[in-house]
């Protein structure tokens, strides 16, 4: 049984006359997989993420995670939101520890094992290149640094399912590639399932095993592609002709989806 199953889901914002964001959405992601979702802007990708997390409940259709229908937020899911949403009154480190104060499994252990958790948060900060920034406030970090901290916060409680909504949007090309490798290694080292929303098609092809292409709003899945490149992948895979062919293919599909709207 797939970890994430979405069946014929319709989601409309703001009551009966509101915006139909996704319609007839169908997708399945297996446990341990790395899926990417691409599509035109405003097609309902963030909505899809919120449906899986349980932040929105669809008007029609069925969303289930780990075999259970999603009717409220699911705590085995970690999500990095599209906009960095650090709390300005907490230091970066305290922001990263925030999920531990909420998630049932950890909140009772936090006080006793504070040291271990802090060490873990600092290790995470180091992997994303933010070593020593733990005691800075979010507004003392650049936009890209905040996004990286955001990523740490999604990872701290070791979720089984990691939802990343354009987590690398405000980063420069070099940092971005560095973080691709961080995510790649994380996925390889654990059995976490990852769903990544991105505008960057090279990012999708480099990281994912499975790529879903969405139509313009109301969003639905137009096509599902399997990425054939063997793991572990090095950054050099991006210079292979087959890689570029796949990126080009995706690009023209999305271009068509935009025109069709």
């Amino acid at each position: 049984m797939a970890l994430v199953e979405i069946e014929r889901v319709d989601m409309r914002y703001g009551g009966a006359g509101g915006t139909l964001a996704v319609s007839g959405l169908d997708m399945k992601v297996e446990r341990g997989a790395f899926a990417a979702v691409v599509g035109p802007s405003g097609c309902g990708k963030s909505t899809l993420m919120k449906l899986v997390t349980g932040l929105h409940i669809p008007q029609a259709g069925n969303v289930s995670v780990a075999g259970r229908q999603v009717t409220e937020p699911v705590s085995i899911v970690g999500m990095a939101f599209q906009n960095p949403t650090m709390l300005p009154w907490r230091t970066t480190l305290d922001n990263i520890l925030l999920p531990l104060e909420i998630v049932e499994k950890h909140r009772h252990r936090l006080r006793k094992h504070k040291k271990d958790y802090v060490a873990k948060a600092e290790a995470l900060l180091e992997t994303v290149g933010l070593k020593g920034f733990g005691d800075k406030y979010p507004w003392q970090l650049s936009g890209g640094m905040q996004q990286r901290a955001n990523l740490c916060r999604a990872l701290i409680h070791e979720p089984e399912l990691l939802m990343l909504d354009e987590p690398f949007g405000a980063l420069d090309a070099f940092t971005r590639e560095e973080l691709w490798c961080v995510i790649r290694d994380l996925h390889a080292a654990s059995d976490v399932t990852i769903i990544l929303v991105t505008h960057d098609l090279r990012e999708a092809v480099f990281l994912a095993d499975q790529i879903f292409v969405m139509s313009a709003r109301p969003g639905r899945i137009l096509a599902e592609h399997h990425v054939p490149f063997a793991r572990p992948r090095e950054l050099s895979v991006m210079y292979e002709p087959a890689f570029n062919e796949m990126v080009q293919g995706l690009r023209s599909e999305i271009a068509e989806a935009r025109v069709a709207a």
Partner: protein
Amino acid sequence: MSAMVENSAVAGTPPRPAFRMPWLRLAPWLYTLGLFALWELGVRLSGISHTILPAPTVVFGAIVQYWSPIWKNSLQTLYTTTLGFGIAVVAGLALGLFVGWSRSIYAGLYPLMVGFNAIPKVALVPILVIWFGIGTVPAVLTAFLISFFPIVVNVATGLATIEPETEDVLRALGAKKLDIMLKVGIPRSMPYFFGSLKVAITLAFVGSVVSETVASNNGLGNMMASAQSQFNVPLVFAGLLMLAIEGIAMYALMAWVEKRMTGWAHRSTMSQ
């Protein structure tokens, strides 16, 4: 010899910057002095009688002359004001948290509170006198009633305007309403709360003095009212001056507390 010393000093260390007057820090004092000077000058030149507009020197003279009652009544007013204000802070914070808890409570209670706030509080003093007699109690209660509204509204607004994105971050982790309030709502409404204290303390003085003026045998309000009935205009102005000083001091204290407690909300000034 002295020339040599001078030369080596110039060569060795960078020239010490000349002493600069901290004009910005001094400005409030200079402007206040200027105001008093203008006032004094205006009164002297126009020859207005001291029973209409006393010059500052006369007012200060009255402060010295009546120091003992002025001091006693100033303390009394400060006491009723801060007590009423203190109750307003506690009650306002509690009611604000309650009102801001849910959007429906907010929607239901907001118009009621606006209506209540529209009632001039001086109109309530007679009722308070009927209930509690004259003196300290109605003054404290008037200060409380007049100053607690801005606190409630600010706290409730801070809670009711949490960005949905921030709420989502916590909700996605399975946070309950109480978690969201504790982790986001309350810290987020603190700048609103501390900001409202500056408004509230000023209003509290209005409340206590109004009540003392009509229904008390104590306090600056009462002192000024009786000075007025004896045509002791310099003493009336002395009372005004004391009120202004107490008001400024409490306002500055609140501003300082605000800055201390919610430094993160003043990010631009802090990051320097």
